């Protein structure tokens, strides 16, 4: 008895179990009609399967979506003590900054106590008072990434903002967004 399409398709997908598998194999060695039908089904499968969306067509979308989730979800839950609704889109990218970030904190509400708190909040960051400006500086010895691993810049800004500081952010040594794609 010859083989029907259902059996051939199951065989084609490698899903046919013994003893049928061996029987089909044997049948295909001598029955030309079934063999050519099998080849047709194989070609159809190949045709359909190779019409797939290619990996290189997916890559950019993969990065884009990851970036979105990273910015809006993952980076939000690093520390619980800041409310999660603070939204600044770009600073997350700063985690890859190679050189340093300098944060100038407006002096309106500044006092030694405030500076101490800042020091606590951003561990191992030097806080130096220059007149009415507090400079929070992270240089080579203490990489930005180290700080931002624990506190996203968003969170730092949120904190300072909640303390009533005016924050002026200067960034140096940043890598353009385009070239950091491989890090994402």
């Amino acid at each position: 008895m010859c083989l029907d399409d259902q059996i051939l398709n199951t065989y084609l997908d490698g899903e046919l179990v013994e003893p049928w598998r061996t029987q089909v194999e044997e049948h295909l060695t001598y029955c030309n009609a079934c063999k050519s039908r099998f080849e047709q089904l194989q070609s159809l499968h190949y045709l359909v399967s190779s019409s797939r969306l290619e990996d290189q067509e997916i890559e950019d979308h993969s990065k884009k979506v990851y970036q979105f989730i990273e910015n809006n979800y993952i980076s939000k839950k690093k520390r619980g003590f800041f409310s999660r609704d603070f939204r600044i889109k770009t600073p997350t990218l700063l985690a890859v900054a190679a050189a340093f970030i300098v944060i100038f904190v407006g002096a309106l509400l500044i006092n030694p106590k405030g500076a101490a708190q800042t020091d606590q909040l951003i561990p191992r960051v030097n806080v130096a008072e220059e007149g009415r400006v507090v400079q929070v500086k992270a240089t080579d010895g203490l990489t930005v990434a180290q700080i931002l691993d624990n506190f996203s810049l968003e969170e730092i800004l949120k904190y300072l903002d909640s303390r009533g500081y005016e924050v002026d952010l200067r960034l140096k040594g940043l890598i353009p967004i385009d070239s950091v794609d491989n890090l994402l």
Partner: protein
Amino acid sequence: MEVKSNENESFRLVYEEVFPVVMRVAYHVTYNMDVSEDICQEAFIRFFERDIEFKSVDEAKYWLIRVTKNLAINVVKRKSREKAMVDKIKKAPKVPIRSGEEVLISSETKTLVREAVEKLPEKLKSVLVLKEYADLNYKQIAKILRISESNVKVRVHRARKMLESMLDREEIDVS
């Protein structure tokens, strides 16, 4: 290896492995890149926010594929109501199927195949897309779609049969 959906490392790991698969699933159900991107984003956000533990990356993958497929089917259902009229007028062009050695298929052929897959009824389409584009076996497909393995087997067969007739059975070259 256990996977926690909202633990950053696990999330990243699952994302790297599964994103291409769900993107392919979304695309071959909707045939729209922008829509597919939105669907996958939504699926991964749900994954992240759900805070679920999975026994393995595969289990997480099945979960994500199921969510993606459901989201994609919903989009298609919504859209098909809108363009049901247009589709009645449009007629499928024909494409010859040659058997024998595997050759690279042209972009025109690709388009025709995609148009044919797009026209499959929902139940056949889900199974076929998971089979041909997500590279899953019958057992995995059955698990994701929550149907029996024999049901998967039958639907794969029916889907191919329908595709074959859409892609012009008469012109199949058996030489």
